[in-house]
């Protein structure tokens, strides 16, 4: 392992993040924490309770920050991918020690006609969307002056997939495209309201999860025809409210070009190179100076299998790869840190940023 350099901070986490996002070299590579569900273990609460309580979510993330010497730079308010669906009426299963998920045996959208019956919701008052807004407010109150706080919203296809079953929805995208588009239309105003409410609660940016915009799942043609216009509306609303737009997509081969066209994000959190790049080197060369990457350590390996030293070494590789991008890189896992993964390894990511991520 390369020799570790001592790091003396000269910026707050927020300054560091803003510098990276504007391609001005910060004092070191910033770290975005995707230690979300895993943070419950610091506070000592079960997942089922954590997933449904704003206070527990906020306290666990704050305590996690403290236990990590307040050294990660960006909070991300990802609870799980059933939050929005639950607020729209989908029943959710809350395992005691695993991520909550939409009940696949009881989808609320049972038939194609049900797409047209989606009712708007008030996220400020209802369900777990209200919970996330409240948790965001609590985190922002404590941390937004010195650290980045990113809200989170799942884009319409993801939410609809959680209410219909992702496979069934995919088939409907082919056979009943109009119905799916209508569902997106019915749902988007509520998702916009949700995102804006998080900005008003103090989040400086909103992470939009556009899971379906990847080569793993569907063609760019299909994504553009169905979700892209709605993603644009959400992104525009976030910007109009004073927030910045960050995308998250952990699918393989995500469409950087198409997503840039519709949402113009300042950064994309991702786990694999863009669809038009075969390797990470190619990705850095093509996209590194255009859209800031947040990533891309493999979450399962980072949290569950690698040693602390290996995590640092893999982080070092990414840091080195992105060194030519004028500071435009934020280190993280490519997706949420495994909720039952080793917190020592989560801290190793920060150690690596300090040891290897100083810009000359």
């Amino acid at each position: 392992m390369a020799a570790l350099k001592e790091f003396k901070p000269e910026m707050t986490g927020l300054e560091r993040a803003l510098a990276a996002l504007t391609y001005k070299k910060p004092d070191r590579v910033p770290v975005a924490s995707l230690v979300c569900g895993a943070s419950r273990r610091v506070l000592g609460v079960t997942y089922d309770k954590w997933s449904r309580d704003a206070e527990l979510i906020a306290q666990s993330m704050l305590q996690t920050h403290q236990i990590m010497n307040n050294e990660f730079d960006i909070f991300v308010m990802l609870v799980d991918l059933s939050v929005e669906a639950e607020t729209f009426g989908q029943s959710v299963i809350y395992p005691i020690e695993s991520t909550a998920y939409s009940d696949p045996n009881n989808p609320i959208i049972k038939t194609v006609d049900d797409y047209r019956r989606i009712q708007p919701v008030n996220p400020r008052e209802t369900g777990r969307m209200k919970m996330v807004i409240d948790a965001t407010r609590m985190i922002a109150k404590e941390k937004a002056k010195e650290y980045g706080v990113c809200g989170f919203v799942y884009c319409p296809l993801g939410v609809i997939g959680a209410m219909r079953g992702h496979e069934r929805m995919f088939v409907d995208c082919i056979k009943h495209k109009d119905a799916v588009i209508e569902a997106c239309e019915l749902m988007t105003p509520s998702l916009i309201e949700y995102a804006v409410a998080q900005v008003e609660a103090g989040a400086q940016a909103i992470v939009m999860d556009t899971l379906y915009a990847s080569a793993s799942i569907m063609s760019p043609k299909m994504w553009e025809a169905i979700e892209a216009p709605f993603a644009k509306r959400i992104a525009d609303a976030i910007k109009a409210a004073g927030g910045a737009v960050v995308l998250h997509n952990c699918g393989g081969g995500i469409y950087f070009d198409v997503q840039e066209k519709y949402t113009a994000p300042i950064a994309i959190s991702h786990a694999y190179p863009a669809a038009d790049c075969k390797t990470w080197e190619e990705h850095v060369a093509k996209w590194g100076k255009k859209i800031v990457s947040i990533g891309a350590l493999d979450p399962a390996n980072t949290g569950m299998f690698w040693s602390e030293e290996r995590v640092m070494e893999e982080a070092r590789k990414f840091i080195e790869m992105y060194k030519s991008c004028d500071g435009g890189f934020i280190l993280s896992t490519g997706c949420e840190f495994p909720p039952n993964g080793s917190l020592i390894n989560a801290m190793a990511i920060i150690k690596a940023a300090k040891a290897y991520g100083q810009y000359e």
Partner: protein
Amino acid sequence: MKIKIISGFLGAGKTTCVKNVLKKADGNMAVIVNEFGDVGIDAELLAKGDVVDMVELPSGCICCTLKNDLISAVKEIKTKFNPKRLIIEPSGLAVPSGILEALEPIEEEYGLEVEAIIGIIDADSFLSNIHSGLFGDFYTDQLTNSDIILINKADLVNEKTIRAIEEELRKYNSHAILLATVNCETDLPDLIREHGIEHNVHIHFDHDFDSLALTPEIAVNHQLLAEVMEEMKAGKYGNIYRAKGIYNTTDGKCEKMDYTQGNYDFEPFPKCADSKLIFIGKDFDRKALENRLQGK
């Protein structure tokens, strides 16, 4: 713990295939399914002890959380129940290569052996799906990584379409055994799955085929096996399309044999816990072959 992964898009017949495998199970088995509701928790199967555990993987998330949950589920099944076999039926949008990657770090420690990946396609919609340009890589990943592909619902299409499907499948997978089925009814051959590329195998569409799987307890004589290869090539036992083996030899080594339509080779193999030989063909004399291999 031997693992079979059954992949396929919605409606292809994945769940039917899982049910068929469960019905024919001859030992204790665990199952990880996408959704309980489709398979049905068969209380009788569970009570008999044939299926020791059935775990539902939340289909609500098709990204990284699924990987974490899969690893946890496999570990728990192996530790608590240690079944002989595990069937994994992931979401139809899941990529088998991702499942293999997820299991790789725990393979050795937990004694996992991926026996086969069975891909199922719907004969009626496959060609329109693959040519639509709308499907993501998950669809072709399921084809590329399958050891056996069931061209299911074959009764809904004609012979010409089956040929066209086979031709299309070969663009993605030159080595998989292709079987046309109705309701996924077929005897799945035992296979030894290796990482890497298998030889090109073309088996004509047929509902039936024969297979012979041997697990010799004594070491295999290389010279004898080489003679058998020549005899197979000459057609002595009937039509044998494919044969494969990983086995311990009488001179204390471990070896791998690969036979494809008259061509064969032998290679050293790092380690084999148990010897296994498999022969697949049509109307061949299994008894004569077995006797010959046993030196009778």
